[in-house]
């Protein structure tokens, strides 16, 4: 059977844009030209007169015919603020960000819909807007939601350990600030779906680029007021996701269009619309102080983080919840006595906040890595020494970190050592000294990342559920179902590897159908594929293997213990001539067991049903309350050259060493590392979402929002270590997010190291060439000043 990659490489992908149904209509959205405005009037008459237009949906129809979008996380805690706006799928009465969808035109084809969209007349009354978090927090700032006292959507506070005695014991306290610009994933394929409402059966099917079909089903059903049993979401081939596609809100408008027109309706979003109305991420401001000993040991930290959520992060997606891992991930791989961390999620007139590789834990980790570098500089030790001094040691696992995560396993010193070796750091530093004499500036930077993976967060739509099914068909082929949506990250292949390893069947005989909402599960977010889904699939495979052995022992007349399976053959170890192929076994089990049929023990225990559905839940989370289950670790080392004439950063060498527990497929893991590292480099050097003074998004194409090309991306040297997780079925750990976290921090650190002679602290990102050039010029004007 052709596997997915072979199908894709021969151009036979079935992405949303490729779907065609009889009578299919096209939908396009019309977006607001203002950052903040009242909608006074919408006149669709001229547009409706265009030949080929079927219907036009505005906020009026949305309010009449749909429910507000369901809330995705309600996490009000004692002393916390958590505010929930009422949000519909289209703007109602007011627009709150540039590009916010105000109307949807449905026509026979896309070009007609676009032409008609231009004929819609909308009258707005512009309102004062705010697109800076500091301004948004000031009293008197324009309010996004008039029923709220302020623009604070969330304020959370954490106290870990004993922060007061940590500061009391300190030799010194260092102030640190760090800022990340607004960025997001924007895979090459935008969002899209085809919705088809069956009037007779009153049922809805939606095919689309959905990362989490089961959750999407719930959201569609709630929005449209339909019973969930009447809604089905099917994921088609997905052109990249990175967390950017695990929400849904525009899709519900498409579904409504199908209900109203009685036709299948397709919506497919091109890049510009994706950037303007898609989930934004990063965009955080940290201020903190770290209490340390003179030898570089860290004791305590007090920090605040402010996150720019855009219009909101609780209804269209689940971004606001990310403040929590942003605060809680700060301890990273180190020993701490105490911490106090507060997070503010502020709403502004920008696109909404949701998930992007890293989600929230990336922020705390990037911050603390900047802190560690600063500590090293202050006390006069190397960046690797400060990490070695503070690392949790290999004999301390499972380690209950002060943030209440229980780290499963790891060997942090070994990972960092390997990275330093592969990067030949000693040699690079010698060259650095020589080259500085010649007016060339190279720098060595590093970062250490633990990746909390496999979230199970109660009181959100992401509480940890998962379901896996393995069945043997009558022809001996094997079907595997789960919530492991394939986004290009090798989910189908991983499922097949796990099952064929356990069942001894041929990998070519396994089929992993596209994931649909039929199977319960949160989907592959928070890198939980290798944690929850892999564990559930392995469990199901192990359970069905038992049934296979029972049935085989009846047919081969051999005790179960004497039977083994390899390469698709089930055979007696003592007498390999006694064998059955999977096909022969299945035929006999399903239809032709033989004259004596099955013994009653088999029938009464139902061991003859070759279909197992099961689930898995993290013992770590259940026992310890740790919201994450596994914690892979990685070290990134980057060597860069900064051209002081142009501000350009060139990457000379890049090393990433990774411990993801027991690896399912090294090639898949390497692919995730390569992709994540390059995304992190993009964030470090190029990517930024820029809003103008009028509140419009200026960077709305790949010409402005610069993603790394092949020439921007380095050759990446990858090393591996494996400390299996004691908590998962296979010992595997969720991975894929650490590379995007460590790479950004390492590149920033390397630039700062290269610019040491200029005494520049790099405390914001991206470190674009313009910024770097300016920092150098500014520092040359004033000596001894700290420039950021």
């Amino acid at each position, binding site marked *: 059977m052709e596997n997915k*990659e*072979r199908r*894709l*490489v*021969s*151009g*036979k*992908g079935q*992405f949303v*844009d*490729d779907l065609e149904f009889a009578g299919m209509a096209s939908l396009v959205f019309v977006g607001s030209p203002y950052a903040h405005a009242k909608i006074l009037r919408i006149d669709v008459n001229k547009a409706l007169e265009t030949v080929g237009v079927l219907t036009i949906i505005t906020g009026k129809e949305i309010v009449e015919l749909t429910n507000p979008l369901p809330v995705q996380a309600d996490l009000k805690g004692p002393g916390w603020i958590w505010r929930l706006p009422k949000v519909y799928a289209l703007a109602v009465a007011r627009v709150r960000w540039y590009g916010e969808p105000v109307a949807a035109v449905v026509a026979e084809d896309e070009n007609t819909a676009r032409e008609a969209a231009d004929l819609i007349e909308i009258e707005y009354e512009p309102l004062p807007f705010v697109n800076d978090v500091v301004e948004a927090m000031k009293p008197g700032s324009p309010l996004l939601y008039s029923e709220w006292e302020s623009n604070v959507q969330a304020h959370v506070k954490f106290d870990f350990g004993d922060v007061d005695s940590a500061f009391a014991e300190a030799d010194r306290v260092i102030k640190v600030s760090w800022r990340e610009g607004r960025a997001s*994933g*924007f*895979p*090459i*394929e*935008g969002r899209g779906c085809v919705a088809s409402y069956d009037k007779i059966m009153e049922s809805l099917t939606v095919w689309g680029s959905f990362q989490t079909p089961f959750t999407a089903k719930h959201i569609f059903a709630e929005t449209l007021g339909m019973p969930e049993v009447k809604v089905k979401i099917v994921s088609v*081939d*997905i*052109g*990249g996701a*990175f967390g950017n596609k695990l929400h849904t809100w525009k899709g519900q408008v498409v579904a409504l269009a199908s209900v109203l027109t009685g036709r299948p309706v397709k919506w*497919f979003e*091109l*890049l*510009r619309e994706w950037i303007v109305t898609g989930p934004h991420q990063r965009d955080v401001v940290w201020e903190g102080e770290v209490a340390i000993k003179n030898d570089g040991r860290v004791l305590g930290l007090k920090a605040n983080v402010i996150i720019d959520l855009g219009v909101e992060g609780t209804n269209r997606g689940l971004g606001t919840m990310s403040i929590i891992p942003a605060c809680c991930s700060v301890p990273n791989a180190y020993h701490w006595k105490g911490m106090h961390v507060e997070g503010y999620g502020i709403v502004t007139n920008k696109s909404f906040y949701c998930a992007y590789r890293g989600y929230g834990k990336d922020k705390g980790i990037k911050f603390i890595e900047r802190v560690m570098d600063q500590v090293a500089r202050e006390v006069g030790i190397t960046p690797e020494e400060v990490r070695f001094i503070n690392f949790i040691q290999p004999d301390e696992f499972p380690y209950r970190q002060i943030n209440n995560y229980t780290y499963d396993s790891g060997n942090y010193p070994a990972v960092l050592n390997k990275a330093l070796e592969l990067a030949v750091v000693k040699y690079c530093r010698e060259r650095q000294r020589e080259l500085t004499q010649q007016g060339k500036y190279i720098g060595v930077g590093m970062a250490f990342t633990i990746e909390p993976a496999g979230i199970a967060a109660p009181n959100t739509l992401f509480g940890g559920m998962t379901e896996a099914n393995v069945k043997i068909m009558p022809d001996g082929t094997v079907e595997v179902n789960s919530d492991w949506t394939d*986004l*290009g*990250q*090798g989910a189908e292949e991983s499922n097949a590897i796990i099952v064929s390893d356990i069942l001894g069947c041929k990998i070519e005989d396994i089929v992993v159908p596209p994931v649909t909402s039929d199977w319960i599960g949160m989907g592959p977010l928070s890198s939980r594929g290798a944690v929850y889904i892999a564990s559930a699939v392995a469990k199901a495979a192990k359970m069905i293997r038992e049934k296979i052995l029972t049935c085989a022992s009846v047919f081969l007349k051999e005790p179960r213990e004497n039977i083994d399976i390899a390469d698709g053959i089930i055979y007696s170890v003592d007498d390999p001539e006694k064998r059955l192929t999977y096909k022969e076994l299945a035929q006999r089990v399903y239809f032709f067991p033989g004259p004596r049929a099955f013994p009653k023990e088999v029938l009464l225990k139902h061991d003859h049903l070759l279909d197992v559905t099961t689930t898995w839940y993290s013992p770590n989370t259940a026992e310890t309350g740790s919201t994450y289950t596994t914690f892979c670790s990685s070290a990134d080392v980057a060597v860069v050259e900064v051209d002081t004439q142009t501000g350009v950063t060139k990457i000379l060498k890049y090393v990433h060493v990774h411990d993801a527990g027991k690896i399912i497929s090294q*090639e898949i893991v*390497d*692919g995730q*590392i*390569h*992709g*994540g*590292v*390059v*995304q992190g480099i993009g964030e470090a050097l190029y990517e930024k979402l820029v809003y103008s003074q009028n509140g419009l998004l200026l960077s709305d*194409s*790949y*010409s402005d929002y610069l*993603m790394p*090309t*092949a*020439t921007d*991306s380095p*050759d*990446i040297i990858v090393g591996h270590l494996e400390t299996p997780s004691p908590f998962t079925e296979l010992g595997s750990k969720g991975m894929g997010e650490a590379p995007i976290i460590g790479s950004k921090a390492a590149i920033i650190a390397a630039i700062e190291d290269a610019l040491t002679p200029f005494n520049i602290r790099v405390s914001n990102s991206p470190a674009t060439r313009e910024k770097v050039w300016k920092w150098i010029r500014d520092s040359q004007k004033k000596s001894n000043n700290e420039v950021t």
Partner: protein
Amino acid sequence: MKVPVRFKVNKEEHKLEVDPRTTLLELLRNQLKIKSVHRGCEVGDCGACTVLLNGEPVYSCLTLAVQANEAEITTVEGLMKDHELHPLMKSFLENRGLQCGYCTSGLLMTAYFLINNLGELTEEEIRKGIEGNICRCTGYMGIVKAIKAAAEGKNSGNWW
């Protein structure tokens, strides 16, 4: 007002009448149902829509259908021999040159051109040559490896 055009796509002759505003991308996908050509940005920023026009890579989103009059166009479907994968495609599979597959068709056409015209390729030349095709998933490592291996394979006669 429609304009007649004729061209060959993957060696098959087509004669059509098109609205002059139609792009080559729209024509290939919507009228000829050649779905390997993908829509990403439609403004020439990503390369997902790359096809060969008279043997040279172009962004089909920035090419008008009428510009392709009398031309020979090649897409991924044209690289296959019936059901057999082109050696370049096999190299992409063996060397993990794809993950989600969305940028892959465009990249394959650019890579095909590079290998055909530049012969032996250094890593730097490969990276420079595929600069106009953005990939968000792979970090380019598998892609560069796949192209290098395919170029070497061509030298040993494994090519068409």
